[in-house]
């Protein structure tokens, strides 16, 4: 794993969910909030303050790119965001780390692998 990426891990819950929401497509802020709520089945909901606080951090680290408003959009206040290649690498690294955690937890708790059921 890249040491530079490794130094940023583990990601905060909000950052992880934002990167995950943007992994599929470019979204505006409200769309990110809705996507996170959908992915977590309504368990984890971000407020706009938390969302933009984390987005600011992610943009600074060049993991997310701001695209600005889209032509023909319903509301000109909406700006779209895109996951950068660097952000995708970080998300992959975090996913690998979490996979390792899950594997270890399954082993310790003797939970059968879902693939073998």
């Amino acid at each position: 794993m890249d040491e530079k990426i490794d130094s940023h891990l583990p990601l905060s819950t909000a950052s992880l969910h934002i990167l995950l929401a943007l992994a599929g497509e470019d979204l505006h802020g409200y769309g990110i909030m809705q996507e996170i709520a959908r992915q977590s089945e309504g368990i984890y909901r971000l407020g706009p303050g938390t969302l933009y606080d984390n987005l600011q951090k992610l943009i600074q680290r060049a993991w997310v790119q701001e695209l600005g408003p889209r032509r023909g959009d319903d509301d000109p206040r909406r700006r779209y965001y895109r996951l950068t290649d660097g952000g995708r690498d970080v998300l992959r690294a975090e996913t690998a780390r979490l996979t390792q955690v899950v594997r270890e937890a399954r082993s310790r708790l003797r939970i059968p692998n879902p693939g073998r059921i």
Partner: protein
Amino acid sequence: MLRRLYRCAVRLHPSSFRRRFGDEMQYIFDQQRGTPAALAVMLDCVLSLLRQWTLRAHVGFDLVPAPLRSPTSDHIPSFDSLDKFQPRPSAMIHGALLSLILLYMTVFAVPYSWMHVLNLHIPEAGNPNQHLSRHSEKSSAHLQVDVIPTEADDPHSKSIASSSPRIHAAVLPPRRAAILLDQYVGKYISKHPPANISIQIEDYRAERLSLSMAAAGHLSLAPSPVSPGRVFVIVGAQNSYVDFTADAQGRICSLSLVLNGKVITAQRQ
């Protein structure tokens, strides 16, 4: 109403954050349906506000690391700590506003402190003993600071008090407070209406005097928070107080007792 509050909260964010995300935050607030959802977003905005000013205060500045200077002749590297860091005007305004609010709150809270540590009197210039007169409180020349320390025999306190003649009792041990109260002690006689008033010290530490008069019995007097050196309020009585007057030498020469709407002026014996 809530929308206006939310807009205010968004505007209180650092300018770089507000310019970049303020409109979108407002848009998301507008998408909320129902008061509970709007309140949740409002709460989140307030938390974001705290986070931005405390944890992310550096964001928005182009921080340039201080350049490492080459070693000097003594081979000790020197660092330039005054880099090109310049706070934004909005941050300066916010800081000034917060400072003013804190200053106002502190000044407002001082008279309500349970322990009057600092008791400032501003006597007239050229006659430091006139600090109790009505006129002297309007003019300012120098400060008299009465501080009640915890240690009665602090040698440092004595040295300060003796070495600074313009500061009366700069740091006073407890018995020094009694000396200040001593100047009020004595007999005061009124002719119209006839009355004999006696002033005694009731409690040194609490700066309490006691007033004895045949018609009123014993009354406890506490320094007025407004004019502690001159006016003493009667404890447990409303709109009743004793106003002491000093002569040209600063000696207490008379008092005016206002009790139950009646005024008795008595001269000191």
